[in-house]
């Protein structure tokens, strides 16, 4: 059995696929029209859409910050796992710092010894 549930259910952050799909679906035409030549780069593309707020469509304006924010949240959630599960990774899994693959493989199959904080971080990161 995998990790036992601890406390109320924790929502996973949005997948990168879903976030990029929102960006493409709502802003594809606006990017073509206003940001041609700007690649998929969360800083430059966001800056370009912000600079061209007066030209972009209402649906893009309403969605693009949320899409970039969703990507940033998932990245942050995955970074947070390292900190929230540091004790478990070392003591339970014998993983050295930055051995994320080894630590996660162990943490995702551990049946006991996982703190609520670590468990929540894993869920928010979308690792299960």
């Amino acid at each position, binding site marked *: 059995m995998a990790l036992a549930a601890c406390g109320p259910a924790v929502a996973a952050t949005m*997948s*990168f*696929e*879903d*976030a*990029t*799909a929102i*960006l*493409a679906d709502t*802003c*594809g035409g606006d*990017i*073509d029209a206003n940001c*041609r*030549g*700007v*690649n*998929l*780069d*969360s*800083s430059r593309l966001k800056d370009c859409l912000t600079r061209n707020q007066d030209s972009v469509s209402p649906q893009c304006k309403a969605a693009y910050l949320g899409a970039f924010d969703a*990507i940033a949240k998932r*990245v942050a959630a*995955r*970074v947070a796992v390292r900190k929230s599960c540091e004790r478990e990774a070392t003591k339970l899994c014998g993983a050295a710092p930055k051995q*994320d*693959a*080894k630590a*996660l*493989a162990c943490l*995702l199959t551990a049946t006991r010894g996982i703190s609520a904080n670590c468990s929540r971080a894993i869920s928010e990161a979308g*690792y299960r």
Partner: protein
Amino acid sequence: MRKAPRAPYLLNLVGGPIIFMVLTTGAGAQTAAATPDMVHQLGGLQAAADVDVAVLRQQALDRIKSRADSEPLKRPPVAAELPGLPQIAFDVQFDPDSAIIRPGSYRTLGRIADALSDPALLQYSFLIVGHTGVTGRRESNLTLSQRRADSIRDALVTTFKISPKRLRAVGLGEEQLLDAAHPAAAINQQIQIVTVGQLD
């Protein structure tokens, strides 16, 4: 000993639903789940591959400059070791003669990022391989494919924070056709991601 290669899957997002086709047959489109299939296809590296990106680039360039293997149908691959490694190949739409990724392919990049950051693949490093068809000059195609492979790597690193240590990029132009029997086929413009190494 290296595990027997699995048939790479092709992700095709052009004009409709996501479909996967088996490269070795070049036909028979079949629906498949996305990220889990990619994770499955990219996992299972048995031994790190001895792939030197700088050497590959130089070999491709030298072959072009020497005008060797000018007939695409008879052109041997530059990197003979790549087909035996775990890999996926997929379409990415770029602006013409450019490395700018079209918005229609953002979702593909997001899906790739999901796969590469899956716990089952965190232990691996990957080679992003750019290809082109046989239209145009070979050297220009080599340069364009390198820029496009770099562009994919940049997006994965800057936007999705995939560790740069896990990703290398190489463009092989038309020197390693994905469908050598059909040099003009669109499949030859796809991007490959190949599992090449394991992190310490």
